[in-house]
């Protein structure tokens, strides 16, 4: 089976490629990427005129909730959502129940991800830094790495002790494992449910101050500088956190960071009258934060974009604000939000956009992904985006079990319309329309 993706705009940041041309997928491998060819022998031809052909997208931060919280999401539904969102690789966070702190659980996740019902994308597990996420005893990181984790993290339960974090980083340096850091001081954030600001004061909700995030970003940057451990700061939300990462990079610390769409597109005012769809961790901040995050995306201080996909059950979300869980199902809205708020606003060029959605996260986590160079990925990983498709995001029509989204009902411009990981794993009906034809 040979598939020809014909006459699309090929964007591959890994080789600085931006040209109109063709991609040929032979069975599950990339066979050709380059200018349009006069004649190609193919079984299926997709007319990609006006579309972007990019390396399969990579999401460095998703919660698949399995094992333990299958009512929120499963590996099957989560990977289906990933495929529909344009992703061919997702990194799943370790705060499951039990947490991902031993090799058997890594095997379990990889097995489930490879099952035929699953979405067909690669799942790259991120292991827990401490046993049971207790913040005390370190996990057997070498065994976890051997089982297949791509990074280690304290997601969901940020390590408060600088001493424990230092030792964790020492091990990770030795094992060449990136640390993905959830940066929040528990004492400052305790009981908080939205940004500590004018809005929380008005609503009578306890706030999470920006200092809660920035103090731990700074600590982790300092520890990275001194241990040499590669630290990836997950989903920054304040301008101060961005500036601290900028400083750490300037000092030569191996620090990177990502941002989630709700933190570059939305602000605290959107909580309105206690709308729990806008309850995030870290919380939605202010326009000033958004403005400086956009700048940092443009100048490269923010390396990549994560969905921070955090699905929850509806009954948990329809609760008093302080009791509702934080986070949003994001796998199927992130590309739309990114193209709408970053590409069409000219914050990012097309190549920068794909760099942040694919090549950069793959590079940071050392994944065989994020490129269209034939032979550099285990199978062909290709995403087709329609950058100009205008559509309305509707959580009611998503694959994810999580229906908690701050983007519900929003108009987006730009969408992932087809995803190939090996073979074709997802195709939007709107992409199909007149674009596919059988040859021969």
């Amino acid at each position: 089976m040979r598939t020809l993706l014909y006459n699309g705009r090929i964007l591959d940041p890994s080789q600085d490629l931006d040209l109109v041309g063709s991609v040929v997928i032979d069975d599950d491998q990339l066979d050709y990427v380059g200018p349009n060819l006069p004649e190609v022998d193919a079984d299926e031809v997709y007319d990609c005129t006006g579309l972007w052909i990019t390396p399969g997208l990579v999401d460095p931060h998703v919660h698949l909730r399995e094992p333990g919280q299958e009512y929120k999401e499963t590996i099957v539904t989560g990977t289906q959502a990933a495929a529909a969102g344009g992703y061919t690789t997702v990194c799943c966070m370790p705060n499951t129940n039990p947490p991902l702190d031993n090799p058997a659980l890594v095997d379990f996740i990889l097995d489930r991800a490879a099952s035929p019902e699953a979405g067909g994308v690669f799942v790259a597990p991120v292991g827990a830094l401490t046993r049971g996420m207790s913040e005390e005893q370190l996990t057997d990181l070498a065994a976890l790495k051997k089982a297949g984790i791509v990074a280690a993290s304290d997601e969901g339960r940020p390590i408060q002790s600088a001493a424990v974090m230092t030792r964790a980083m020492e091990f990770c340096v030795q094992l060449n494992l990136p640390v993905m850091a959830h940066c929040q001081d528990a004492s400052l954030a305790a009981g908080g449910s939205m940004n500590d600001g004018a809005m929380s004061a008005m609503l009578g909700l306890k706030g999470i101050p920006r200092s809660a995030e920035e103090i731990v970003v700074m600590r982790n940057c300092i520890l990275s500088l001194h241990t040499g451990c590669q630290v990836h700061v997950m989903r920054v939300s304040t301008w101060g956190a961005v500036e601290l990462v900028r400083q750490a990079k300037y000092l030569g610390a191996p620090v990177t960071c990502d941002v989630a769409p709700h933190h570059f597109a939305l602000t605290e005012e959107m909580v309105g009258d206690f709308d729990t769809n806008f309850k995030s961790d870290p919380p939605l901040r202010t326009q000033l934060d958004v403005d400086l995050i956009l700048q940092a995306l443009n100048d490269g201080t923010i390396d990549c974009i994560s969905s921070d996909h955090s699905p929850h059950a509806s009954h948990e979300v329809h609760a008093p604000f302080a009791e509702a869980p934080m986070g949003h199902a994001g796998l199927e809205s992130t590309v739309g939000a990114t193209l709408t708020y970053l590409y069409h606003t000219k914050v990012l060029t097309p190549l920068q956009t794909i760099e942040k959605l694919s090549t950069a996260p793959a590079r940071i986590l050392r994944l065989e992904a994020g490129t269209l160079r034939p032979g550099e990925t285990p199978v062909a990983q290709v995403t087709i985006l329609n950058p100009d498709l205008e559509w309305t995001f509707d959580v009611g029509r998503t694959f994810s079990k999580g229906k908690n989204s701050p983007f519900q009902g929003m108009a987006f411009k730009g969408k992932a319309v087809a995803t190939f990981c090996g073979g074709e794993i997802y195709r939007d009906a709107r992409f199909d329309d007149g674009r596919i034809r059988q040859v021969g």
Partner: protein
Amino acid sequence: MSRHLLGIRHLEPEQIEHLLAMAKEFKKRVSTGKPVPSLQGHVLGMLFFENSTRTRVSFEQAAAYLNLRTANFAAQASSMAKGETLKDTVLTLRFERLDGLVMRHKESGAPTLAARYFGGPVVNAGDGQHEHPTQALADALTILERKGTLEGLVVAIVGDVDHSRVARSNAWLLSKMGAEVRFVGPRTLLPSHTGMLPGQVFHDLASGIADADVVMCLRLQKERMDGGIIGSIGEYAKLYQINRDTVRLAKKDCLVMHPGPLNRGIELDDVAADSELSAISAQVENGIFVRMAALAWVFEGVTPARRVEQPAPKAKEKAKK
């Protein structure tokens, strides 16, 4: 669409005026033995998820004057204790054919959530640190009786504004009616950002209550000391107590108010609490009449027990913006 009283923040000045005029009229009628409108046939659910004696009794009294039957709902003994969600509890009460709800909850915004699903009027009897609209109405009626107007008055709200729903509702009401609102207290007891609250911040008592027409003291919860929010009760009292000496810093004829329950010797001393300047007992009594007004207002145009036949609200649409 049902009418609710979820907070003063959502009201127009004309609506506040209307509620206060109704309360005044009810007070006159009840005091002179004249009839008041009857809401007979309606059943009012009293949902107090947080302990309250004063507000609950006041609502019971208001309902009794209006011929409203009340159904009490003890949160500890309820299905909430068995793990039912607030949304399901509210939906259950809707189909128990209750016509309206009075609700107190420890979480800010809980009555807003209830109003989304109940389908009948909901009156907020205090939610977390958000709002306590009927207390603000009672305070406003009290000030009106003693000062004749709210417009142009200087009102200092002294104490734990950050944790106070009474302070927020009062600030909204008084500022909407043209008064100047001041928040007075130590930095740790005032909201750290007041950009969206209508009040000026003062950390010094003397300048905060200088020329004040009304000084409203707030209750200081003793547990505030635990998190290091204040050093000690003694230090607080030394800096912010309204007493024989400090009351002189306000206008000569200033009103001294307190939403209760009082910590005598902390926020107020006996001299200030019991002098002719004090309006504390009037606040309590007026609570009944403003709650009558609130209930009569939200039930305007509601036919008893017809609600249940209306289609259920579409949860999904209402849950989002």
